[in-house]
């Protein structure tokens, strides 16, 4: 326990050191090359812009909007991806029939579809949520499909023997077996969801962090753009941490191990 806490602390320190190093080098290069703020602003400029936006309250509604979209999209797309993953994982037939459509829905660049989505769904939050959902649908689908396929034969035989229904076998055997993999998909989905929401806002949004980036680009306010990118990154990290926390909670019984056997 003690060793672990030490590792944890020292790794945080290293992580922060790395961040600081990057920032210092960046600040220094920006000064040395005398790049225009329009091309690559120094971190100090970005931080000033960030602080101004936060303290003036300018950023908050945009953050709220994006967060709303991400959470709604993630809930919708994640759930749908999980359910479809269960269905397609269960049925080779379904997989053969529907996978082409699933893949098609994913390779279609959302960016190109956005104008049409607004035609169908109107303007506002809905199309962004749909884009976000579309984007985080796939990782959960793929990982659920893979995860629930990992159950070994003997446990499947056990469940058949116990007269488990198909649903029970799925829910009480395949899903717990695949949980680590499914949660890896969730981590990917969380990250993609934010990207999806921001990209949606690039095109059709008049609010949200994505819209803010475009507005910043329009007024050539690169420091503002970087400030918003920083916000997005922070929000992404928070979401990812939340996903890791969920994972830690759910996977607790899987983590049983003992000293001398821990992986590094």
């Amino acid at each position, binding site marked *: 326990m003690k060793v672990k806490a030490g590792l944890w602390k020292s790794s945080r320190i290293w992580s922060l050191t790395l961040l600081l190093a990057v920032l210092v080098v960046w600040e220094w290069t920006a000064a040395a090359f005398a790049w225009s703020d329009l091309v690559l602003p120094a971190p100090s400029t970005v931080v000033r812009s960030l602080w101004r936006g936060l303290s003036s309250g300018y950023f908050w509604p945009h953050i709220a909007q994006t967060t709303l979209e991400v959470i709604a999209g993630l809930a919708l797309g994640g759930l749908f991806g999980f359910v479809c993953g269960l269905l397609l994982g269960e049925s080779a037939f379904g997989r053969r029939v529907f996978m082409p459509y699933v893949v098609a829905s994913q390779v279609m660049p959302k960016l190109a579809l956005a104008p049409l989505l607004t035609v169908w769904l109107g303007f506002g939050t809905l199309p962004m949520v749909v884009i976000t959902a579309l984007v985080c649908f796939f990782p959960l689908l793929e990982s659920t499909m893979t995860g629930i396929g990992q159950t070994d034969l*003997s*446990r499947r*035989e*056990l*469940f*058949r*023997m*116990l*007269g*488990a229904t198909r649903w*029970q076998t799925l829910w*009480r*055997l395949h899903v*717990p077996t695949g*949980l680590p993999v499914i949660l890896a998909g969730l981590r990917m989905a969380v990250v993609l969801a934010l990207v999806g929401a921001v990209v949606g806002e690039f095109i059709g949004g008049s609010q949200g962090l994505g819209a803010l980036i475009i507005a910043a680009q329009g007024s050539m306010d690169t420091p503002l753009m970087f400030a918003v990118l920083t916000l997005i990154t922070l929000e992404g990290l928070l979401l990812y941490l939340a996903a890791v926390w969920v994972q830690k909670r759910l996977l607790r*019984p*899987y983590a*049983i*191990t003992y000293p001398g056997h821990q992986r590094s």
Partner: protein
Amino acid sequence: MDDVFLSMRQVSYRYPDAPVAVSDVDWLMPAGAFHCLLGRSGCGKSTLLKLASGLLLPEAGSVSLEGQPVCGPSPATGFVFQAPTLLEWLSVLENVLLPVSLQRSPDAADTAHAQALLDELSLETMHDRYPRQLSGGQQSRVAIARALLTQPRLLLMDEPFAALDALTREELQDILLAVCRQHGTSVLFVTHDIAEAVYLADRVAVMNRGRIACEKSIALARPRSPGLRHSTQFNAICASLRQVMDTTQ
């Protein structure tokens, strides 16, 4: 024979790309009987058990249980697999309760029953552990408790005591006999311990290369008691079975 409980007629099975694993097996089991299967490693014992359970369907021949053809596993049949096959994310108690919790949410009586079973199998301090925290023999005892919980009409056991020491094994043999007697359970039991087979069974079959090489009724008094193991009659039966096995393969 109208009191036949389990009947296998001319049953054959072959895994893809492998020689036949079970061929032309005929086997009848009256209700409440205790039958043992002996045989060398790889002779088809586990396969035959899976055929009896409905987990595998025979390529030729037929299996029927209480007159009904078996076309899939039935929850009234208990199965102890050769490996413990526990679910790692459930505690020992939850693993034992699994057969019940797949039917309904386990109540206090179920939990008490499961706990009593675990205690009987000397796992009283292990209820809240996870399977990976158990020794090999403890895991297999959990699997046995799980199979006994639902008091199945037919119990199929594939070397359930293989990972246990002689003492524990003998204790469990007596427990098993008592439990089955009490509930009228029919048991088909695979073992490679001849003495175990003789002690437990009414009837013993020796398998060889997928076929039943020899059947033998065991005419020992019931209920069995540990002292029986030292009787000459017991040892004579063991020796004769041993002789049959020596001629196989």
